[in-house]
């Protein structure tokens, strides 16, 4: 091996041009979809199309420029993918609003998209090295718990639609669970990097599985307890499942111990059975999952009607969908929120949903690729955890609304209407972009090469 060979190692391409082209393509798709809705509903191109188009295009261009400046080596696919999902969500909300759905507001969602992109750029600019987060492990853990508890506090906590998951800041309400998600993943990553050697120690061996030592069960049990607490006190099944699942996945990534996954699953089943025995609403969800078409459940308040309406929408959409603006997604209660996926399914059809799931899968895949390429354990865990939690969240909510698993409320990342979720998820994306930049950046030249022959390439 000569030094000449070493110098000719191909560097990962920045692919900035490709990224810009894909970004423009994503914005163009969204604009066409937007025009499509207007033509279908009012027989004309929506009046605000130019504003929306220039607005979204401008925002994305700004995000691109910041990314090009502050994270030039970042994965070129992440930003266009997110732009596309965010844009399609925006179009669906616009369509629901045009269809007369109360509380659906495309302008609010566009505002929060803008705010989300600002958060994205600010995170990229401020956070030059994500490893700084490792120093904030316990701060993040504390913040996560504080956010988790906030909705239960008097004065600022608020219960909407039966779930106590909101805080009222006076000028706006916030759903802190989405921020909790990021804070806790940062905490888990920092904590597990510090403790993974201990947690990976084998205890007794049962059959073919190495059990961890009993005294190391603490963190798992605490997370389990917190998740159950969320479930009991806030009646928020989704967040509870999200946090616990993400913790188990990260524990596994950190320790390579399959036993943790098994313990996690056992604890989950135990918790689910316990919750089912104790709480009517958990049992109801399960009953609905087993037989959503049941007329009695359909008529019951909080029964299967919303789920069935979602399934009706999907069935009516069929393979090709009705076309944007030509279905009746407004039949689905809260179609702009948890059920936006089924609303999209009616008008974009199976074809559209497969494409959407593909986009999410690609996004997760780019995140996991970043984790594999990352050079330090903290980055690997953080990138892996954030990617997994994104996939896990999509699985829980999309699986829920399509009756693959019992329905638990969660936002569909980047699609559901809601400021908190958009802000939090854009920050999540900024973290992934930051880490992919770090991972793909060519390492500094090794010091021991310096004394050897310098090769200049022309």
């Amino acid at each position, binding site marked *: 091996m000569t030094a000449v060979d070493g110098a000719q190692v191909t560097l990962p391409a920045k692919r900035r041009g490709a990224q810009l082209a894909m970004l423009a393509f994503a914005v163009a798709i969204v604009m066409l979809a937007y025009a499509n809705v207007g033509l279908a509903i009012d027989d004309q191109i929506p009046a605000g199309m130019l504003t929306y188009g220039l607005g979204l295009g401008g925002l994305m261009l700004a995000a691109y420029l910041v990314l090009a400046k502050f994270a030039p080596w970042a994965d070129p696919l992440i930003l266009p993918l997110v732009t596309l999902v965010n844009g399609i969500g925006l179009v669906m909300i616009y369509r629901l609003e045009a269809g007369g759905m109360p509380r659906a507001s495309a302008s609010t969602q566009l505002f929060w998209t803008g705010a989300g992109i600002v958060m994205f750029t600010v995170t990229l600019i401020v956070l030059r090295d994500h490893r700084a987060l490792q120093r904030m492990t316990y701060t993040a853990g504390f913040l996560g718990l504080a956010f988790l508890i906030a909705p239960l506090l008097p004065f600022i906590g608020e219960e909407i639609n039966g779930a106590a998951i909101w805080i009222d800041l006076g000028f706006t309400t916030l759903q802190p669970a989405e921020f909790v998600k990021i804070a806790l993943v940062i905490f888990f990553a920092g904590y597990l990097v510090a403790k993974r050697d201990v947690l990976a120690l084998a205890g007794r061996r049962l059959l073919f599985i190495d059990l961890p030592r009993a005294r190391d069960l603490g963190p798992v049990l605490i997370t389990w307890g917190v998740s159950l607490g969320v479930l009991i006190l806030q009646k928020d099944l989704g967040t509870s499942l999200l946090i616990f699942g993400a913790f188990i*996945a990260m524990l*596994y*990534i*950190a320790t*390579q111990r399959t036993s943790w996954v098994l313990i996690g699953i056992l604890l989950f089943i135990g918790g689910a059975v316990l919750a089912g025995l104790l709480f009517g609403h958990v049992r109801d969800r399960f009953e609905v999952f087993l037989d959503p*078409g049941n007329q009695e459940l*359909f008529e019951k308040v909080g029964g299967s009607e919303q789920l*069935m309406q979602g*399934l*009706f929408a*999907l*069935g*009516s*959409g*069929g*393979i090709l969908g009705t076309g944007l603006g030509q*279905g*009746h997604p407004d*039949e689905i209660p809260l179609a702009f929120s948890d059920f936006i996926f089924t609303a999209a*399914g009616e008008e974009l*059809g*199976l074809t559209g*949903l*497969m494409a959407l*799931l593909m986009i*999410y*899968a690609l996004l*997760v*895949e780019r995140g*996991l690729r970043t*984790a*594999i390429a990352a050079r330090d*354990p903290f980055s*690997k*865990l953080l990138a*892996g955890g954030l*990617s*997994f939690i994104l*996939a*896990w969240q*999509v*699985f829980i909510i*999309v*699986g829920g609304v*399509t*009756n*693959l698993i019992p329905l638990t409320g969660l936002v569909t990342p980047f699609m559901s209407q809601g400021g908190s979720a958009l802000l939090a998820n854009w920050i999540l994306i900024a973290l992934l972009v930051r880490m992919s930049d770090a991972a793909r950046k060519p390492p500094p030249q090794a010091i021991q090469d310096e004394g050897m022959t310098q090769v200049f390439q022309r």
Partner: protein
Amino acid sequence: MNGPLKRAALACLLMFGLLMVNVNYVQAVRAEDYRADSRNKRNFYDRYQVERGRILAGDQVLAESVENPESDYRFQRRYPKGPIYAHITGYFSPESESGIEQARNQLLDGSSADLLIRRSIDLFTNKASKGASVDLTIRPKAQEAAYNALRQSGKRGAVVALEPKTGAILAMVSLPTYDPNKLSTPNKGEVFAAYNKLDADKTSPLINRAISRSYPPGSTYKVLTAAAFLEDDSSRGPQTVVEAPQLLDLPNVPTAQDLPNSGGAACGTGQVSLVFALEKSCNTPFGKIGMDLGYDAMNEQASRFGIGGDPLEIPMRAADSSFGDEVDAAALAQASIGQRDNQMTPLQMAMVSAGIANNGTVMKPYLVNKVADAEGGEVEAADPEEVGEAVSPETAGKLRQMMVSVVQNGTASAAQISGINVGGKTGTAETAEGQDPHAWFISFAPAEDPKVAVAVIVESGSAGSDASGGQTAAPIAKAVMEAVLR
């Protein structure tokens, strides 16, 4: 850490795989179940997406679709003269339809194969397909006259008016009626509540009494008995003398159940002309004629008027009419004067009257004059069809002459129209104990060249005698005939 990361990536892949498989299952495999579920309102919206064709009668719009772009239910059905035409147009409710709305549904909503060419053209010219419009044979003036006259009687009943030469239905009224507008809104709750109320109503306003209900025809049936008598021997005529005892002895029944005349009265001298018997509506001569001719001859005559044959579709399906089964001589005598198992729809009795008016040839009654697509192109046009020759032209002439005499000299003087010869026959049909009998009247005019034949039934409209029934039912027929002729 790359090993577990790769396995985590595999787990994510598995999750997305499961979601994709499940979405395929829901949207491709189970799609039809979800689409067709009755709780899925989309089917119901689709019902209101099409501009249904209009239902017309001459220059009158009986039913039309009105666009409401603001609503999820884009086209809603309106019946400008609702109750008057309710049993003809029918209604267009969220889940079903009736009347012409049902019978010509596929033409009205444009889905009929007959409109395939029109739809293809619309597809290429990018026009929204509209349904075809259905033009009825109804004459609004006659319909309204029938409706108003029957309503004035304050009773339940039905009126049918036919054009004898073609069978075209000129008027068809059934009372009580309902407002189809109230059953045709897209508001399921409201419509079902209104429907259930109408359905539970003991007076059955939803039933089209003109075609869907049969009644004993009473003395109007004596026209048919007379027809059978005249057909049996062409030398017989109005002046043929028939036996008319005060009480007709029926074989094998107690004397108490023998057949008297109305009110037990004598019929002339006991030996009267056929026309006299008809004018006075004596029971005994017709009971005797029926017994003398026998069941087969009587039933044969009935079937030649279309009674008991293939069910009529006008296009709504009419209830069956029947002379009754063969039981014994007593039953035959009773059936020959329109009692016992003898059951006729008002439409059938109008056909009897029209057949006699049309020289003995009965025409198949029909309601749809023509169907035209949205651009006015003809899709379907009425083609009058014969049911058959019920009686010879000679017999028909004799019957017409006698029926004119009934109006001029007999029980039906209330149907006289000055300057026009009207033929008619009253009837009183015994019903349940304690209820007033139904009053019937069948007629045609003008006798020389009949333009209209009418059948009227007024439920419990008679005080007991034919004369009193004639007072109730005949003026209604008169009003309809006047409306057609003037």
